[in-house]
C-alpha cells in the first residue's frame, strides 16, 4: 500500500455525517435559499427533481435497499442504536433501521461506480403454470454519469409451483446485459420518487399520502370508474402509500438519507408489524417489518423488510400476494431480494458484442 492509498483508505473508513448534522446543514441552506428568493418560508429547498435513479426488477416493487458492506459506527447521543437488543415493536425496529441507514453512504466519485449485487427470486405465471426463478443481478451505476448504468442478470434455477415446466423462461446460466435507457416503458410507475421527499418522516409520509390521493383520483378517472366509496378510495390510497414507501426502502440506489426517511415514515404506519424471524432469499435470518394492505377485488399484498438482528442493517425484502380464488384468498409469493454487496468499484464490464436484447424488455 502506498501513501496515497493509505490516506484514501483512512478517509473512506471515516463515518459520514450524522443525520442531525445533515439536517442542520440542510436547514441552514434552506434558510439561505429562502432569503435568496425574497422569503418564502413555506417553500423548503427542493430535492433534485432530475434524480430518477430507479432500477427495477421483480414482480412487485423492485430491487432491495442498499447496504454498506462496511462497519456500522456507533455514536453517543439521542440517536444511539442499542445493537443486539430485540426491538419492542415494528416502529422501534424501523426507527433503529432508519438511524443505521442514515449513517451508511456509498458515494462513487468521478470515474467510479456504485456496484450492487443481489439475489432476486422472481415469481411469474403463464399458461403452463406458476414458477419462481433465481436471478443474480448486478448493477454498475457511474458516479458522474448515471445515464451509463449497466445491469447484468445471470439466471438461475427455476422452481415450479404449479403446472408443468414453463417454456418461456431463461435457461439457467443465461446472462443478460441491460444498459440504462435500453428498455423504456412497460412500468406503471408510482407517482413519487426519492428526490421529492422531505427529510422529516412525518412530512414525508404526509407528502406521499397527498400524492397518493392525487394519483388514485387520476387513476379512477382514467379507468372511467365513478361512484367509488370513500372506503374504497382510502384503501387504494393506503396501497399506493405502502407500495411507494416499500419500493423506495428497498431500492439500492435510493440515497441513504432518503432511505432513512422512508424507514422513519414506515414506522408511523399503524399497520406495520414486527416478525421475529424471517429468511431472505440468501438464507439469512433476520427480524422483519411486515406491512399488509388490501388491494382492489378483495385481495391483499404483504411486503416484508428484513434486517440483521444485531445491527439493524438491511438484508433483503420479500413480498406476498393474496389472490382471491373461488371465495378464498390464496397466498402466492411475489418478488424477493437479498442484498449481497454494495460497494464502490473502479470499473464496469464491457457488454459482449454478441449480447442479445434482454428477454423482458
Amino acid at each position, binding site marked *: *500500500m502506498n*501513501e496515497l*492509498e*493509505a*490516506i*484514501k483508505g*483512512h*478517509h*473512506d*473508513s*471515516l*463515518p*459520514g*455525517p450524522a443525520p442531525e*448534522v*445533515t439536517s*442542520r*446543514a*440542510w436547514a*441552514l*441552506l434552506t434558510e*439561505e435559499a429562502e432569503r435568496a428568493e425574497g422569503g418564502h418560508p413555506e417553500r423548503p*429547498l*427542493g*430535492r*433534485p*427533481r*432530475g434524480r*430518477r*435513479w*430507479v*432500477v*427495477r*426488477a*421483480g*414482480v412487485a416493487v*423492485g430491487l432491495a435497499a442498499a447496504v454498506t458492506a462496511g*462497519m456500522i*459506527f456507533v455514536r*453517543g*447521543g439521542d440517536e444511539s442504536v442499542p445493537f443486539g437488543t430485540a426491538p419492542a415493536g415494528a416502529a422501534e425496529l424501523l426507527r433503529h433501521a432508519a438511524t443505521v441507514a442514515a449513517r451508511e*453512504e456509498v458515494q462513487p*466519485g468521478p*470515474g*467510479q461506480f456504485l456496484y450492487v449485487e443481489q439475489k432476486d427470486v422472481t*415469481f*411469474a*405465471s403463464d399458461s403452463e403454470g406458476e414458477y419462481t426463478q433465481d436471478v443474480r443481478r448486478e448493477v454498475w451505476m457511474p458516479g458522474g454519469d448515471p*445515464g451509463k*448504468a449497466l445491469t447484468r442478470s445471470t439466471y438461475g434455477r427455476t422452481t415450479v409451483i404449479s403446472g408443468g415446466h414453463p417454456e418461456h423462461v431463461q435457461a439457467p446460466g443465461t446472462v443478460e446485459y441491460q444498459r440504462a435507457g*435500453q*428498455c423504456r416503458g*412497460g*412500468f406503471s410507475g408510482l407517482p413519487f420518487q426519492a428526490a421529492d421527499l422531505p427529510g422529516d418522516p412525518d412530512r414525508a409520509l404526509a407528502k406521499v399520502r397527498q400524492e397518493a390521493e392525487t394519483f388514485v383520483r387520476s387513476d379512477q378517472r382514467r379507468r372511467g370508474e365513478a361512484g367509488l366509496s370513500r372506503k374504497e378510495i382510502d384503501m387504494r390510497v393506503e396501497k399506493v402509500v405502502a407500495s411507494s414507501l416499500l419500493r423506495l426502502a428497498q431500492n439500492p*440506489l435510493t*440515497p441513504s*438519507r432518503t432511505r432513512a426517511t422512508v424507514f422513519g415514515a414506515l414506522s408511523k404506519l399503524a399497520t406495520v408489524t414486527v416478525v421475529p424471524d424471517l429468511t431472505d432469499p440468501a438464507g439469512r435470518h433476520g427480524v422483519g417489518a411486515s406491512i399488509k394492505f388490501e388491494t382492489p377485488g378483495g385481495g391483499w399484498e404483504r411486503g416484508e423488510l428484513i434486517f440483521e438482528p444485531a445491527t439493524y442493517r438491511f438484508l433483503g425484502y420479500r413480498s406476498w400476494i393474496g389472490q382471491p380464488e373461488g371465495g378464498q384468498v390464496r397466498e402466492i409469493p411475489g418478488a424477493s431480494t437479498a442484498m449481497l454487496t454494495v460497494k464502490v468499484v473502479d470499473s464496469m464490464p464491457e457488454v459482449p458484442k454478441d449480447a442479445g436484447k434482454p*428477454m*423482458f*424488455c
Partner: protein
Amino acid sequence: MTAPLQDAAPPSEDTDAQVIEASWRDPDRFGAVFDRYFASIHRYVHLRLGESAADDLAAETFLRAFRSRDRFDLTCPSARPWLYGIASNLVADHHRAEARRYRALARSVGAGEVANHDERVVQRVSAAVMQPRLASGLARLSAGDRDVLLLVACAQLSYEEVAAALGIPQGTVGSRLNRARKRLRKIIGSAGEAL
C-alpha cells in the same frame, strides 16, 4: 397473470453545472448539489480537522457555495473541484488546528488525544484510526503541499481539478504533490514500518 422482470429505468440526472445554472433562477434547485456532495465534503473535512469541525465547516462550505453560485464556471460539468476548493479554503483558516490534530494522532490514538466523546467511540469501534506514521508525516507537510496531497488522495481529483480547486497552476500541483509524497515516504520510511 404474467409478471415479467422489469427494465432498468434510464436514470437521468442533470449535471452539476446544469443544476447550478438552474439555481440562478430557482435557488431551491441547489438542494441537488447538497444531496450529491455533503457527505463527501464532510468526510474530507473530518479527516483534516476532526468530526466536530467537519459538522460546522461542511455546512459552511455549502452556504458559501450557494452564495457564490453565480460565479460557478458552467463549463465545468462537476461541482466537486469547486466545493473541495471552498472546503480547503475553510480548512486553511484552521491549519494550526489541523497540524495539532495530526500530531496528536501521531503520538497516540488513545482517548485523551481525541477531541470529543463521539470521536473516541468511533475510533474505538472502527478501523478508522490513522496510522501514527502517516499522521506524523501529514503534520510535517506544508499547508499547500498537504492541500494538494489530500485533494488527490481523498477526493481523487485530477491535477487539472486540483488546480481549479486551489487556484494554482497545474505545474504547481504536480510539484507540490511530488514533494509531499517524497517527504511523506521519507518520514514513513524513517519510522521503520511500512504502511
